[in-house]
């Protein structure tokens, strides 16, 4: 099995672990899309101030008129 085929098979297995079985024609195009997104997510892996809360912090406080 050559490298591209191996990569596609690995991707199919990776998708299967998430319960996904996509049409075979999808896989080649999906590889660079996943690589792109993972590059972006990896760029987020760095140290931050402990107190920096995410924008989506849960709140039950009643909203007030500005």
């Amino acid at each position, binding site marked *: 099995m050559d490298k591209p085929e191996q990569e596609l098979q690995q991707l199919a297995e990776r*998708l299967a672990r*998430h319960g996904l079985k*996509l049409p075979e024609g*999808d896989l080649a195009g999906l590889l660079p899309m*996943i690589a792109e*997104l993972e590059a972006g*997510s990896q*760029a987020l892996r760095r140290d931050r101030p402990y107190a*920096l809360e995410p924008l989506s912090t849960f709140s039950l406080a009643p909203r007030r008129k*500005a």
Partner: protein
Amino acid sequence: MTDELCFLTITEASQLIKSRKLSPVELTAAYLDRIARLGPQLNAYLLLLGDEAMASARAAEAEIMQGHYRGPQHGVPIALKDIYNTRGIRTTAHSALLQHHVPDEDAFTAALLAEAGAILLGKTATWEFAIGGTSFDLPWPPARNPWNTAHDPGGSSSGSAAAVAAGLAMAAMGTDTGGSIRGPAALCGIAGIKPTYGLVSRRGILPLSFSLDHAGPMCWTAEDCALMMGVLARHDPLDPASADVQQPDFASVTGSIRGLRIGYARAMIEEAETSADVVAALEQALATYRDLGAVVSEVELAPSLAYADVASTISRSEGYAIHEHALINAPELYGKSFRQRIVPGAFVRACDYVNAMRDRTMLVQQLAHVMTSVDLVVTPASVTPAHVLGQGAPISRTKPSFARPFNVTGSPALSVCSGFNEAGLPLSMQIVGRPFEDHVVLRAGRAFEAATQFRKQRPKLTADVSAAAE
């Protein structure tokens, strides 16, 4: 004459309707006639509601004749992107998955527009679930750009932009998660505003990314967008993101911009390798603003990639969470492009999502700091004019976007037409403001449109004899 009616703005038509010089029935019939003649060139509509529209127009006419004029939307023909739920009316998201989906409730905004007396002409084409890109493997073809039907109208609110530009709707609703109002507005030469996050309810609109989704109007002019926002900006206790704030002063958009401080994001524009015609039009627009009494200076924003990484990590995670069940059970009911854009979200770690939300906090604070020294920031709305249909560069982390940063920050951002290139395709400018200062953004857009001639030019569709004669 009937085609001339379809080129009225809401500002103009509402005055005529209010004074009973123009009947909503006549106006709606003119639109339906134009759509029947020219619509097939553009594929802007997925569903036309001719009979329903005429019935609504007759009801509006009767009300107005009895002295019950509701306001500027009364009797005005509009369209909704086909991800806005409409009670008893098919809502498909341009997807085979929802091909037969008939909601039992209107989107909050659709109901507001109906209460204001707007006439719903139909549901417009979109990228599949507002992300799939220009696709040819869906139950309906993609919309086309009315300035050149071989070109792409942009997306995802493709049909809404094409319809407004071509005079097939006086206004249309779009949604914007990463530029989906401003991009197509830019490529189709119309005005489109992504309001401040929380100012317009998303309830009843099929979601793509809960924390990045915005709903907003697309019109021929910024002033028309302000009229639409006067109806749409309402607190909705059932949309968790809806802000309970005083409505911005949309009536002030016709005011002067003298003394307004405008920041020019030069570094971001150069970093994006923006096309020369877009840059030239923007520099001309800045000269116009100086002539109008605004004070222009340069500002520096965070690098595009910082916004891109936050936006893509959040949007793909939230989008995949929404669609995972159907992707596992019926992937074939989605188009290939949709699957390839959403499925990568399966592989984002929870930790990365949380850190994207933490960086988002920093980016919001950083822009707020920049906007202590200026009232507005301007950039192009699109890096290039419209490309040939189906030949756009694929979405990528490094593909520049002037729109995406302001979904991350939730800022109000308006696209207006800033001119035309040698091929006759529209160029664009984006105007960004502080949260809940949507009226300031619209005032700057309106002032630019009033000071320039670009609103006098409409697409010349091949079979459109009246427009070609302009």
